[in-house]
C-alpha cells in the first residue's frame, strides 16, 4: 500500500500542511527541530492510533490549538481510502472513513500499515522489557487489528485486578479483612484474556524468528548466531508454540501460576503473572544482547526486528509503508548501504535526514526540504 496524500491541521508544529506523496522513496531533509519527525509521527498515528514518542495525545496538538486533524489517502491495490482523525486531548478521538463517521476510532486500525524505524529503536535491544512487549503487541495489531481489543481488555483486567489486590492488601495490613470476594472472577478473566494474548505472542515469535535471523545477517553483512525467545512469567506447557489451538492449555497454565502467586500478589498488591510481565529475549552467540552486544551489533539487531516485521507483513499481503526517521545518521556506511538495499523494494519508503548526504544515493528518490513546519519540493 502507499499514501497519496497527507494533510495536517494543528498537528505538532504544523498549523496547516497539504502534501502529495507518491510510491517509491521520498526523502525529507531539514535541520533539527524543523518538523521532519512530526510528519512521520502523524502517519504512524493513523496506522496505530498512538505516537511512537509520547504516551498521551496532548503534545500532538499544536500549542494554543484545541484539536489536531490528520488526513491521509491510502491506496491499496486498486482501492483507496480516505482516513481522517480528529485528536482532542482528554476526549475520545473521532475518525471518519471516506467522509463517513465510524462508530469507534479503533475501526480504522488496519487500513494503514506502517513499519517505523527510529533512533528510539536502539532501546528495543538496550532498554526495558516494556519496549519489547510493545514491539510485539504493535506487530500483532498490525497483522490482526482485532488484537487491539484483546490488548485493551487484558490491560483493563490487569489494572482492575491490581487495584483490588492493592486495596485489599492495604486493608489487611491495617487490621481489616480486605474484600477479595471478587478475586476469583477477576482471575478467570485474567486467565482467558491473558492466554489469548500469550498464544498470539508465542505464535508471532515463532513466525518472526527465521525472518529476524535472516535480516540480521543481511544488515550485519555476516552470519551470526542470533536468537529471539519469548520469556513468559507463567511456566509454559512443554513445547508451547502458541496459536489458537493452545489457548486452553495456556488458560490452565495461567490459573496454575495465579494459584501459586496468590499469597505474594496479595502481599505486594500487584498482578505478578501474565503477559504484562513477559519479555522477548534477544541473544547473540548465546549471550543476551542487552548488556553484551556492541553498539553496532545492537543497531543491527534493532534494524533486524523492524526488517523482519516488514517481511512478515509483506508475507501477510499487507505491504506496509516504511517510515525511516533519522536512522541513517546512526549507522556506519556499510550498514547504511545494506539497509538502503533492503528497504528499496518496498512499495513506499518515507525517509527523514538532517543531512541529505547520509541517505545512500540509490535510495534518495524524490526530495523535499523541511523548514519551520513547511515542506517544499527540493527538485
Amino acid at each position, binding site marked *: 500500500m502507499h499514501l497519496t496524500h497527507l494533510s495536517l491541521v494543528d498537528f505538532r508544529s504544523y498549523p496547516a500542511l497539504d502534501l502529495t506523496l507518491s510510491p517509491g522513496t521520498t526523502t525529507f531533509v531539514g535541520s533539527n527541530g524543523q518538523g521532519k519527525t512530526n510528519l512521520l509521527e502523524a502517519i504512524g498515528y493513523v496506522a496505530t492510533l498512538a505516537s511512537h514518542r509520547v504516551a498521551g495525545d496532548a503534545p500532538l496538538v499544536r500549542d494554543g490549538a484545541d484539536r489536531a486533524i490528520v488526513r491521509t489517502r491510502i491506496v491499496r491495490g486498486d482501492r483507496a481510502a480516505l482516513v481522517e482523525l480528529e485528536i482532542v486531548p482528554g476526549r475520545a478521538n473521532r475518525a471518519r472513513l471516506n467522509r463517513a463517521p465510524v462508530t469507534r476510532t479503533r475501526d480504522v486500525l488496519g487500513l494503514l500499515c506502517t513499519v517505523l524505524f527510529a533512533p528510539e529503536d536502539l532501546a528495543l535491544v538496550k532498554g526495558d522489557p516494556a519496549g519489547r512487549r510493545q514491539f510485539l503487541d504493535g506487530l500483532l495489531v498490525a497483522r490482526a487489528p482485532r488484537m487491539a*481489543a484483546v490488548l485493551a481488555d487484558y490491560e483493563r483486567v490487569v489494572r482492575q485486578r491490581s487495584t483490588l489486590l492493592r486495596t485489599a492488601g492495604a486493608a489487611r495490613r491495617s487490621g481489616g479483612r480486605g474484600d477479595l470476594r471478587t478475586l476469583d472472577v477477576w482471575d478467570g478473566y485474567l486467565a482467558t484474556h491473558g492466554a489469548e494474548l500469550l498464544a498470539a505472542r508465542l505464535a508471532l515469535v515463532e513466525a518472526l524468528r527465521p525472518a529476524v535471523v535472516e535480516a540480521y545477517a543481511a544488515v550485519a553483512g555476516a552470519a551470526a548466531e542470533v536468537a529471539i525467545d519469548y520469556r513468559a512469567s507463567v511456566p509454559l506447557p512443554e513445547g508451547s508454540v502458541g496459536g489458537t489451538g493452545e489457548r486452553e492449555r495456556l488458560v490452565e497454565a495461567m490459573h496454575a501460576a495465579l494459584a501459586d502467586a496468590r499469597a505474594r500478589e496479595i502481599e505486594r498488591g500487584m498482578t505478578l503473572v501474565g503477559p504484562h510481565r513477559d519479555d522477548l529475549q534477544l541473544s547473540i552467540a548465546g549471550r543476551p544482547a542487552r548488556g553484551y552486544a556492541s553498539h553496532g551489533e545492537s543497531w543491527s539487531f534493532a534494524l533486524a526486528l523492524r526488517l523482519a516485521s516488514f517481511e512478515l507483513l509483506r508475507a501477510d499481503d499487507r505491504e506496509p509503508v516504511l517510515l525511516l526517521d533519522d536512522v541513517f545518521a546512526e549507522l556506519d556506511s556499510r550498514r547504511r548501504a545494506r539497509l538502503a538495499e533492503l528497504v528499496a523494494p518496498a512499495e513506499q519508503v518515507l525517509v527523514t535526514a538532517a543531512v541529505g548526504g547520509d541517505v545512500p544515493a540509490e535510495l534518495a528518490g524524490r526530495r523535499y526540504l523541511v523548514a519551520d513546519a513547511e515542506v517544499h519540493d527540493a527538485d
Partner: protein
Amino acid sequence: MYEGIVQDLIDELGRLPGIGPKSAQRIAFHLLAADPVDVRRLAVALTEVKEKVRFCRSCFNVAQAELCRICADPRRDQTLICVVEEPKDVVAIERTREFRGLYHVLGGAINPIGGVGPDDLHIRELVARLADGTVSELILATDPNTEGEVTASYLARQIGPMGLRVTRLASGLPMGGDLEWADEVTLGRAFEGRRVVGA
C-alpha cells in the same frame, strides 16, 4: 474567575458528568441570556426530580411511588428478572419491547478502580427477591465490557446454587460498549439468543 454567583453556577455545572470547564461556562452564559420563563422551567424540573422521584423499593429503578411503574404492573411476568446496571438500561431494554418481565437495577458494576465492590451494589436485595421461588429465570444484562462481564460472572456464582435458570444476553452486542448504545434490533436479538451461564 467571574463574580460570585456566576462562578458558583459554572462550578456546579462543571461537576456534572461529561461537562468540562468550557462547556460549563458556555451553558452558564446561555442561561444568563435566556428567557427567565425557560430558566424557571428548568429550575422547577431540577427540584421536582429530586423531591418526587425516588428509587423503587423492589427493583431500584427510578419511581414516583413506592414501586416503579413496571413493578406495579400486574401484567408483567413475575417469573423473569432482568438485571441491569443503571435505570437508563431499563429504558433501552423497554424500547426493544422484547422483554415482559421485571428488572433489578444494581446501581453500577464491580469496579475496583472506581471503589465499587459487591456491597456497593444492590446484590443482597436481589438475592432476597429470589428467596421465595417465584422467579425462575434471571437474565444478566450488565454492560458488554470488562466490568459488566465480571459483575455478571460474580452474580452467576452467587446465584447459581439457588437452582434457577441464569442467562446472559447473547454476544453480538458491541464489545467494550454500553448497553445504552446498542440499537434496538441488536439488543432485541441479544435477548432472544440469551444463553445459560454456569455457576
